[in-house]
């Protein structure tokens, strides 16, 4: 399904774009900046009358260039991504565009699962994926070892993914109602 308003389509798919960018820059703040930059370019292209058939693909193409610039600017940092990996990830995103309804269900399920977590776990997730703090900084703030924080985050991700899968499966069979 493609929305008639490209801007609306961009907004509805921005989590996918964020996921794509975040996978390749691994920094929440940088990913947010790049999403913002893609959005600005997308809006400018729309205003100038450019006809964009597939906004998601267009945005990923723009994001690819920005990600490459991002890594060039951070030449002194440890390089996590090369152009080949970038192309492969882009391939993964381009061949499986999901319907908005599925995304909506997944988002609802995830929100429910997050809410069900203990407060301490939710805050740990927030530090990492909302505030975008590096794991080392979180470990320092919590007076815990780096390894234990990484382990806790990994465990939380698995718990959430399993929770979402379970809820989606239950939703499809009509057994669960979201608040």
């Amino acid at each position, binding site marked *: 399904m493609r929305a008639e308003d490209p801007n609306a389509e961009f907004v509805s798919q921005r*989590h996918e774009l964020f996921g794509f960018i975040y996978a390749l820059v691994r920094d929440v703040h940088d990913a947010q900046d790049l999403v913002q930059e893609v959005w600005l370019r997308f809006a400018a292209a729309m205003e100038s009358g450019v006809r964009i058939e597939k906004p998601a693909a267009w945005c990923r193409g723009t994001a690819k260039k920005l990600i490459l610039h991002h890594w060039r600017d951070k030449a002194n940092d440890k390089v996590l991504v090369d152009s080949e990996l970038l192309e492969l990830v882009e391939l993964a995103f381009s061949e499986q565009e999901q319907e908005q309804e599925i995304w909506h269900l997944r988002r609802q399920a995830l929100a429910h699962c997050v809410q069900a977590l203990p407060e301490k776990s939710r805050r740990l997730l927030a530090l990492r994926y909302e505030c975008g703090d590096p794991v080392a900084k979180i470990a320092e703030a919590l007076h815990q070892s780096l390894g234990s924080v990484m382990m806790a985050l990994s465990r939380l991700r698995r718990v959430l993914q399993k929770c979402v899968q379970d809820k989606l499966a239950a939703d499809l069979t009509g057994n669960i109602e979201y608040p």
Partner: protein
Amino acid sequence: MKTLRELMDSWEDGSLSPEDRRQLKGWLRQPDTRAQIREECCFYGLLHEVLSRAEPVLRAQPETEPATAHNQFPRRPASFFGRWLAAPFHARPALAWSFFALLLVAGFCIWYFRPAPLGYISQSGEGVLITHAGKNYPARPGATLAAGDSVVVPQFASAAFRWKSEASRFCLSPETEIRVNQTRDGKQLNLSNGVLKAVVVRQAPRQPLVVTSPGAVAKVLGTQFTLSTSSKGDRLEVVEGAVEFADVQHQRPSVTLHAGDSAAALRGLPIQVEPIGGAAWWQVWVAGTSALADDLPVGSNTLYQDYLGAAYTLVWSYPFISDWSRRYRESVRGFITPEQTGVYTFYMMSQEASELWLSRDTSPANKLRIAYTPARASGAPLAETWNWVLRPGLDQTALRGKPWNKFPAQKSAPQKLIAGQRYYFEALHELVPGDCLAVVWSRPDDDFPAETVPGRVLSPLRH
């Protein structure tokens, strides 16, 4: 081999190694795992979105402290300074910038209020020291002199220093000690021992350079002079300009010396002003392209000029020359007035090329070259087996066994000189580091090199 889950964890933690990356690419090339990876990536997007929407409490801004998720965790109590010190700079940019600004301000204050240097050492021999705040430091070229510093020159060395922001320069002989200072009344030098030769540019009105020695004071408003002090008293010779000279020890009226004048403040005697005698006129200049005998110093290329108390030039080791990449020449000119009639033999002593010219009377036009040291081959080093400068009468133990009259041309033909008659002479020399010239003569009716031509038979000729 990592599992896909382990690989995704490494990717998320930013610890993806090159090997991990290769493996990840392998997973991405397989359609089923590619979809799984995509799901994983999209999960982060969803999670970010869900957290941003579902946890408004984490983004609220309390009045006292920025709200981050950190606030929700119990913290180890710490003082402000403890937290300030413990916090990494990159995590607290405001603190880091404050700290660097503080450092900048402190650095500026130290720079602004530092003791301003009065001058700097332009040339120094081995063992020359600067005494600063009671401690001794090596006086290397470029070392600065602050108010109250002393320069101490040991035996067998010399030194020179310049005043900051002006062309005044001061040369110090061996065994000299001088203290520098500057007040609102002008520059002050205190010579406690040794010999100071000074070339002083015109000073500001009412701010003369004042040179004090144990028994005398010289006020200088721009001139060139030599002030020496010893146990017998203080002696001043003025080369250029005028100097007011006062015997402070005996409270006698001051006298003004002009170019060519000398005066001595001897213990128990009044100051006597008289023309500089017992000396020859010494000039050092940047070499021209003509032959040594035809090259004359002119105003623009003259580097230094002064009176010499004997016909040799090693006294100073040329402390006024700092750039030895250029070629220099020197001349010693004046009149010889022998005390005894007889036949004298002259020796021209130097390492590098030199020439000795003597006139049969006082006229430079009648001069003839009577002795010379030949030039070494172009580019050849001054080896130990080369010629050395012998100065009879001085301790030259180091030269024992070394050649000093290697070339027959160094020895002149016998010269008949009449007592009391003045004969013009000039000695010319190509200067190289470590070299000097000496004009040596024999006793009457002898041909053995007896002594360097002494100051008592010399009188200067100035051009």
